[in-house]
């Protein structure tokens, strides 16, 4: 019996039900439903974590070789990051209807690729690679939270009288949080690109090769750099900042998860399988 896959599917089911409940909670404005969704997500996270540990033990390396492993671990980090953050910022639980379905979709996307274990090739045996991957996950999680906040921010502005959104912080505070998570994600993205570059130099003797995924990561980095510039120098606050956050988040998803499918890249050697 393959416990890893059984637990993966169990966790996916938990996330799926939690996502549906979170959306219902949002639509019907029931706080209790959101709390149930968060509880189910936490249970799913534990089961999902056990599935990852079983996988790690059986293949002998971290979950970062093929798309199944990458999506699974990304979903886990995003969910853990979100659940921890909503303890500190209670209002964030209202973003559950955005975050949980995205995590659920990531799990579904991951299971569509092969679950066949792939042993670690010599080129991937590097601490720099681990750093590269850890910060890739952290920056994705930061950008996801900023994206969720931007969605809530725009909702709050469009429906200021909605009771369900009344417990959200003031738009000004949300705007600051969007900026903070984008800035944090930008710092993590810088570390991710740099660690990847150093790893590439150690493995192949070149720190930059304009590989499509490299290039699109740099495009994302420049786009977030532009966001920071516009915010700090051109006073792009509020709505404009939120719309830009959503647009650049879509760009980052395109760069990290879709480019390897469409363009020939060294990253797709492992990711697309």
């Amino acid at each position, binding site marked *: 019996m393959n416990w890893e896959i059984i637990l993966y599917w169990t966790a996916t089911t938990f996330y799926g039900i939690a996502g549906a409940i979170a959306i219902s909670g949002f639509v019907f404005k029931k706080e209790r439903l959101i709390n149930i969704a968060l509880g189910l997500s936490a249970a799913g996270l534990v089961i999902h974590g056990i599935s990852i540990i079983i996988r790690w033990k059986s293949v002998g390396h971290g979950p970062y070789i093929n798309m199944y492993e990458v999506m699974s671990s990304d979903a886990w980090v995003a969910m853990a990051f979100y659940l921890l953050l909503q303890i500190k910022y209670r209002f964030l639980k209202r973003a559950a209807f955005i975050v949980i379905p995205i995590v659920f979709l990531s799990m579904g996307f991951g299971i569509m690729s092969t679950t066949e274990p792939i042993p670690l090739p010599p080129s991937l045996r590097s601490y720099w690679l681990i750093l590269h991957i850890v910060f890739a996950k952290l920056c994705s999680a930061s950008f996801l939270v900023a994206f969720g906040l931007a969605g809530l921010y725009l909702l709050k502005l469009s429906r200021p009288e909605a009771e369900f959104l009344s417990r959200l912080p003031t738009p000004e505070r949300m705007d600051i949080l969007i900026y903070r998570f984008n800035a944090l994600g930008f710092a993590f993205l810088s570390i991710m690109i740099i660690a990847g570059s150093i790893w590439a130099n*150690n493995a192949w003797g070149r720190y930059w090769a304009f590989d499509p995924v490299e290039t699109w990561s740099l495009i994302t980095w420049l786009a977030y750099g532009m966001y920071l510039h516009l915010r700090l120098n051109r006073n792009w606050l509020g709505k404009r900042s939120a719309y830009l956050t959503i647009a650049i988040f879509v760009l980052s998803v395109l760069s990290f998860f879709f480019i390897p499918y469409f363009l020939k890249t060294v990253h797709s050697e492992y990711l697309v399988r």
Partner: protein
Amino acid sequence: MKIIDTLRSRRYAVTFIILIIASFVLATVIPQRTRMSEAEWFRLRSNYPEFIEIISFTGLDHVYTSWWFLAIVVLFSINISLNLSDRIRASWRQFQDIRPLSPSEIKTLPLNAVISLSGDKDQFFKEAEKILKDFRYRLKRHNQGLTAQKARIGYFWIPLFHGSILIVLCGVLISGLFRFSGTVELSEGQEFHGREEEFINRWYGLLKYRPEMGFSIRLNRFNVEYWDRGHPKLYQGFIEVRDRGGDVLTKAVEMNEPLKYRGYSFYQTRYWGYSALFGLLRNNAQELTGYVNLPYKERYDNVILKQDFLIPETGLRAFLDYEPASKILRMEIKDGLKTIVNGILKEGDYIKLNDHTLRLHRIVKWTGLYISYDPGVIVVYTGFALMVLSSLGMVFLYPKRLWLSFEDNTLLIGGDAGRRRVEFREEFIKIVEALKRMTL
């Protein structure tokens, strides 16, 4: 001067970023000549001649080396440099102790508050100092009141971050000018001196510069390991560096574990094969030895490796068939079209060829090594380190300033955190609340 002012404009920084992003998108969507083989390019040119003509004319087939892309990068670098000098001056001014502000100036600050006060001012200041110290501010008393600063180093994060981008770009420029790289195939026991003819491929930077190696390397042994299902696990070359006659260094070079010596780096690549070491003897002359590399294959089980070569000084051509699984080497030697030798050759066997004797010494492994000399790397890495430091600093440590002053029986408090004043508002309100509690 107007040009300099235009180039300095921060609005243009955003324009340059957008242009660079657009160039990157084009370079990944439009086929790039450097990323295609000659055959692929030829096929594309035959199928879409007009399209290829347009992209060749505009440089869109080699975006990263096109004049217009390099011009955008140069203009962007000038924009950053001009802004950087302004930013450094401004940061330095802000870093130095802050000037006390008059009550009227405090009232004009974006963050300000007024607290009614009764009692002894000196006692109040002592208490206020304690509160501000709890918030980790550095304090300075003066006649008009009190000034406080926190995270002063934060004034330098933005110039440092922009400086780090320039340093990385400088490193890239140095790499572009001076970088040399090449590949060699080295057999076990073979020595490499860095001579031009020893490379299979060579790539030079714009200045075509490469310093003399001044040392040689020797591959003592090559080890390859596989996982159970046949996926590669380890490629490992045991390399000895010979500098001025003596052995100075030995290292197991693996992927991600290159050998670095006197500016040169030697990288293990992930391809390898078999090679035959022959010796050719003519009468009593010194033996001439040479490796014949057999072709590379992904897997070596159930394959026969074929190779042919001209035997020096004889005009004869040899044809090899080697089966790695059984370790059998079959050799056929032809004089024109006529076969003069055909049979299995074992290590140590020799063949008489008129005046010469050809001996097979042994079958060994060869492996690919990628060699590079790149003085730009250290500069790029320095830029990377500063970029990480400053980007984390920008997020977590930004400078804040407070002014406290009396006017009649009221206390005026003003705060500023430059462009981060919106974020600073929360802390400012907390401080004001704490000071209000003290006065109650």
